[in-house]
């Protein structure tokens, strides 16, 4: 049973195209995230949703638009792809902890996006 799944795992596309990455979790968690990991392995949060509501939106170009149709899904749509968007994108989920904030996160396998 896959806890957090992402599709596709690899995505190669040309500049200017629009693409989507899908994420699903079957852990019953109430919070989901998107992270970007660059070529130097630096991992940075992009978005966070709690109970389908956007609660964190870091400084991300508005070409990136997350959508959470329900608590189990958080998709990422990217418009007008650029070379600098090439990275590994991770989806993650967690359950709110004792203080109302997030607990440990469970990560998907990542999507390696290559823009040519």
């Amino acid at each position, binding site marked *: 049973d896959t806890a957090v799944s992402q599709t596709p795992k690899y995505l190669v596309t040309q500049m200017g195209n629009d693409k989507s990455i899908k994420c699903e979790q079957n852990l019953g968690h109430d*919070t989901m*995230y998107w992270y970007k990991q660059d070529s*130097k*392995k*630096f*991992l*940075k*949060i992009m978005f*966070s949703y*709690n109970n389908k509501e956007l*609660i*964190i939106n870091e400084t991300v170009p508005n070409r990136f638009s997350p959508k959470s149709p329900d608590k189990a899904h958080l998709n990422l749509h990217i418009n007008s792809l650029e070379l600098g968007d090439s990275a*590994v994108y*991770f989806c*993650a989920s967690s359950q709110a*902890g*004792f*203080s*109302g*904030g*997030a*607990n*440990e*996160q*469970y*990560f998907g*396998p*990542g999507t390696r996006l290559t823009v040519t």
Partner: protein
Amino acid sequence: AQTVTQSQPEMSVQEAETVTLSCTYDTSESDYYLFWYKQPPSRQMILVIRQEAYKQQNATENRFSVNFQKAAKSFSLKISDSQLGDAAMYFCAYTGGFKTIFGAGTRLFVKA
């Protein structure tokens, strides 16, 4: 703003020996979590250990333990009896509210 610093880009350890990975963080909050995640070449992020800031006792998971010094804002990871399968990137992470900040990572090499 919160920050997480891992000052060791790379570390190396002999199989069966012990190694300690360093992590410091900065925050003005009193309630938060700290984590160590492992990322092997498969790129899957795997939780190694977690620590709640309100707990004084250091967390332990089998061969992995932490040294949590809240006043010093330090959270180091000790790996005992290192195994070849421990070779990976290790990320220290701070979670306050719904935001998690990761350190830059430490690449651990294990020599046979």
